[in-house]
């Protein structure tokens, strides 16, 4: 208390007997499902969010339609078109995932979000569930569009080829979800939309190229790359027979530890302590 205070000291309460003037004994926490529903709603209830979603679907439609009409016959099978539509989605779903986190800071909506649910880990968990759910829904929609493309590909002759094993579906899904989770981890780490998006594309485009260049220059480094670089480690899942061997799973494990698990843990730790302004 300052010496200039013209007042007596305030009527303070003894700290030993905390007066509980708000009764919370009957209160229920905000149900987790409600948090997920609210987070999902927030993805689509802004003009930017709505157009971003429409643009993604539109792009998948255009690219798939283009391939179905103009690509050579052997690139118009369901598997090929699935890879194509899934490929477009794996560029954009991570961005959607990033915005789930960073918009709370860039648009400052975090002030409301984290005062209505001050247990931030619950909000983050809701965002992860929401983001993974939207990613799976997006990929399912992509698969549907690819199926449409396969049917469409028959208009200039040829047949619709549907042969599709379980492995590629599983592997596509896994790689897509790894991608969005890496993006989410990055978003929690930097909490800035442009920084997280640039960071993610550096990770997914530049990093494998750098790794490959170093591997070409340094003897023996090519054997190390799949253990420490997550994109390279995922190659067995998206090529050949879409299956990873035991050693390749181990490589995925170590690379994911470096690029997914550690950044995610660090990002979460930072976010739970960050100041929301």
């Amino acid at each position, binding site marked *: 208390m300052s010496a*200039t205070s013209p007042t007596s000291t305030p009527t303070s309460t003894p700290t030993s007997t905390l007066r509980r003037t*708000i009764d919370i004994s009957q209160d*229920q926490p905000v149900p987790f499902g409600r948090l997920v529903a609210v987070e999902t709603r927030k993805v689509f209830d802004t003009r930017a969010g709505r157009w971003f979603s429409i643009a993604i679907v539109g792009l998948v439609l255009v690219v798939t339609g283009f391939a179905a009409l103009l690509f050579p016959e052997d690139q118009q099978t369901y598997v090929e078109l699935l890879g194509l539509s899934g490929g477009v989605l794996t560029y954009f779903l991570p961005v959607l995932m990033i915005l789930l986190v960073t918009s709370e800071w860039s648009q400052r909506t975090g002030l*409301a979000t984290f005062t209505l649910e001050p247990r931030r880990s619950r909000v983050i968990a809701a965002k992860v569930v929401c983001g993974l759910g939207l990613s799976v829904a997006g990929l399912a929609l992509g698969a549907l569009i690819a199926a449409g493309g396969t049917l469409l590909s028959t208009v200039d002759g040829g047949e619709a080829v549907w042969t599709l094993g379980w492995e590629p579906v599983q592997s596509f899904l896994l790689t897509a979800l790894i991608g969005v989770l890496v993006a989410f981890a990055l978003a929690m780490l930097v909490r800035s939309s442009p920084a997280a998006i640039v960071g993610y594309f550096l990770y997914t485009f530049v990093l494998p190229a750098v790794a490959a260049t170093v591997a070409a220059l340094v003897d023996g480094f090519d054997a190390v790359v799949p253990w420490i670089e997550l994109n390279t480690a995922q190659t067995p899942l998206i090529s050949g027979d879409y299956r990873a061997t035991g050693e390749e799973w181990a490589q995925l494990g170590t690379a994911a530890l470096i690029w997914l698990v550690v950044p995610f843990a660090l990002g979460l730790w930072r976010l739970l302590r960050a*100041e929301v302004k």
Partner: protein
Amino acid sequence: MIEVNGLTRTYGAFTAVDDVTFTCEPGRVTGFLGPNGAGKSTTMRVMVGLTPPTRGSVTIGGHRYEDIPNPGRHVGVLLDAGAQHAGRTGREVLEIGARTMGLPKDRVDEMLAMVSLTDSEAGRRMGNYSLGMKQRLGIAHALLGDPEVLVLDEPANGLDPAGIRWMRDLLKGYARRGGTVLLSSHLLHEVELVADEMILIGRGRIVAQGDKATLLAGQGAAATQVTAEDNDALAGALTSAGHDVTPDGAGLRVTATPAEVSRTAMDARLVLTDLRAAGAGLEDLFLSLTSDTQREAAPAASPAPTQDGAAA
């Protein structure tokens, strides 16, 4: 009931909030007053768990904010009316809050009507809102869950005079029904009409607290606001009587009691058109107290251009 106990928040070497202790009682409006950057917003962010304190604690109704299961139902918070997604409509902002708290759907319409936002205004995006509309929406958001405690940071900012009066009545009524209100402002006149209790903060430290009468008691030097038909003549007479005279609006401000001023005017046969006690108002108290805290950091002898900055 809000209890702030020994709260300190530092940023590196800078202490934004320095050992702050105060209590906001139910049924009363507590004004939290200080110049910009005095630590009001930081204190309020700590209250609701957005900023971790360096030391000390805050409880609301006896609980840490983080321990209240569905805090929107007990504590209404408005920290920055502009902190909303520019692409979201006003109605949607309330809708999200209502859904999170689990409120019935018509609660949003109720709140919109209460803050007099029309359907078409509520359907506009936040990016097209004026500051006054954002404040109204922010108040609606804070009141959504029918809370017992309100924490409002600069809620009158951007409101027109009618809006300020509306909010004053709203907060008074809210406190009369037993609610606890803490509202901050850097403008004294916004607070002094509504607050039962005032807390003055400068440079992160509380410099004074109490109700208006207590704060003004002992603020010695009398002052008088006076207007005469011939101000110049009166000023001359008062000056030669040994009083300090400064022009103020249409009249003069004199460091003397109204009786002394009246006597001087009578002796000089001057006609007064207005005479009232100006006292050392809260404004002067506020400025003197907050500039005191600045002198603690800078020697009074040195030229201090920062003082003007603080007064502005």
